[in-house]
């Protein structure tokens, strides 16, 4: 059994805003959400990269203590976007709790803030320090903390998928959510990802010489995907969620259908855990096209992973060219918000949904001079008024994990 799957609601907490209006405004006027990194009292003074994709606005949470007590900062983000997606979807409580709806939601590594607090007590070396490790610290910090805090808050009894595959975390969430519905295991899936403010991730990439360091005084000019002057990625924070539903169910209840998910693929490079891999990406894209039952020429727009690292962008451009030629328009949305790690896939999907709805394609921000090695594909360098029928969102992660997601405009 193969069923059609549609997206019926979305919610974002992104460095360029929350609502569609705010996000489209930034995408169409070239406003960046990258700011100077804020002081964390630990690593921010030592790492070389001084920029961060920042949530610099307040979010009003109204979660009761019975929910808050098991939530670290990452779960506040996750539960907020989940709550808004449920509200927008119009799904009723009986359905949400029926077991027909599941959750696919993850984060890069749970709550680093809570983990740090645990280690501070642990390494104090005293018995008092040990006893101060909270009863709920694990629940707040564990890898699947976002998914299960969502299930607790909304009484969800369906299946749980909690990917934690670095930069493919939330694209896997959507992909595995899609497959759960497509193959009849669930009728709806809440899918997404969240990442809280965290400098340990910056330190990891900083020590690999993969972080942007040349624009610390002009954060809005970095990252620079595919640009000749790109100098690395910019880590960020945020959250995103989408509601996936079986098409006939959504149609019957009169849901507001934003787009159809028509294909997904995920595979591994089968080798190095860090180096980008052209053949691996090509295999992923081709498998995604097969899943969607379309050919490369059918794809109008590719949301590139493009983190603005020296080699990653070149390898991705080569792979896109090998499969698609120079046909689809290509934008790297990280230019606007940095690399929100496990959350990038869902946010890039939401931004793409907004562009489909508006009939526009935003340019890659900070792409002033295209690196000759990346120039063989059809980069978007200026805002375009164009209808997207089929879009692909591709993401790649440490560990050699690749995903390719295909969405289609609903007629």
């Amino acid at each position: 059994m193969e069923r059609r799957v549609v997206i019926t609601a979305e919610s974002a907490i992104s460095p360029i805003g929350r609502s569609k209006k705010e996000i489209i405004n930034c995408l169409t006027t070239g406003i960046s959400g990258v700011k100077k990194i804020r002081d964390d009292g630990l690593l921010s003074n030592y790492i070389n990269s001084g920029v961060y994709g920042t949530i610099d606005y307040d979010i009003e949470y109204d979660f009761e203590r019975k929910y808050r007590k098991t939530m670290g900062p990452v779960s506040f983000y996750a539960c907020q976007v989940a709550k808004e997606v449920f509200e927008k979807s119009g799904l009723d409580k009986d359905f949400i709790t029926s077991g027909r709806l599941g959750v696919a939601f993850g984060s890069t590594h749970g709550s680093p803030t809570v983990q740090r607090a645990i280690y501070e007590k642990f390494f104090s070396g005293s018995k008092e320090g040990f006893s101060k490790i909270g009863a709920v610290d694990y629940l707040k910090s564990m890898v699947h903390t976002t998914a299960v805090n969502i299930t607790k808050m909304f009484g969800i009894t369906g299946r749980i998928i909690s990917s934690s595959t670095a930069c493919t975390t939330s694209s896997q969430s959507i992909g595995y959510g899609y497959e759960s519905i497509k193959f009849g295991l669930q009728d709806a899936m809440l899918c997404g990802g969240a990442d809280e403010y965290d400098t340990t991730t910056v330190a990891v990439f900083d020590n690999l010489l993969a972080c942007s360091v040349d624009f610390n005084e002009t954060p809005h000019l970095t990252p620079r995907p595919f640009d000749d002057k790109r100098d690395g990625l910019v880590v960020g924070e945020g959250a995103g969620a989408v509601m996936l539903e079986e098409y006939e169910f959504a149609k019957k209840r009169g849901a507001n259908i934003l787009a159809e998910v028509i294909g997904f693929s995920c595979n591994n490079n089968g080798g190095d855990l860090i180096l980008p891999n052209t053949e691996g990406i090509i295999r992923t894209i081709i498998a995604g096209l097969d899943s969607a039952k379309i050919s490369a020429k059918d794809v109008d727009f590719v949301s590139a992973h493009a983190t603005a690292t020296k080699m990653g962008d070149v390898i991705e451009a080569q792979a896109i060219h090998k499969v698609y030629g120079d046909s689809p328009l290509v934008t790297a949305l990280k230019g606007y918000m940095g690399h929100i790690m496990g959350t990038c896939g869902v946010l890039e999907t939401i931004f793409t949904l907004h562009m489909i709805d508006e009939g526009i394609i935003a340019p890659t921000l900070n792409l002033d001079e295209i690196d000759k090695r990346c120039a063989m594909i059809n980069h978007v360098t200026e805002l375009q008024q164009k209808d997207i029928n089929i879009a692909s969102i591709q993401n790649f992660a440490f560990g050699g994990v690749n995903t390719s997601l295909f969405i289609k405009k609903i007629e």
Partner: protein
Amino acid sequence: MERKEIEKHILRIFHDEFEIENPENDIDLREAYGFDSIDAIELLAEIEVFLGFELTLDEKKQAMEISTLGQIYDYVENLSNSRD
């Protein structure tokens, strides 16, 4: 320690830490407020600070049988008397 002082302090903990206002003495805290084992562990940590001494493992295990506020008062009063 006076019983009234214990009651006043425990009620303040319920207000400040658990957002539970003036619970009745004999009501089941789990049923009425969703007060669960996680909350119980946190309450024990607060009680240790209040009493100024560490509880033994056995004393902590005894607390897991408690379900009402009145039982908490009794428990804390007994602990206080045990160290006098």
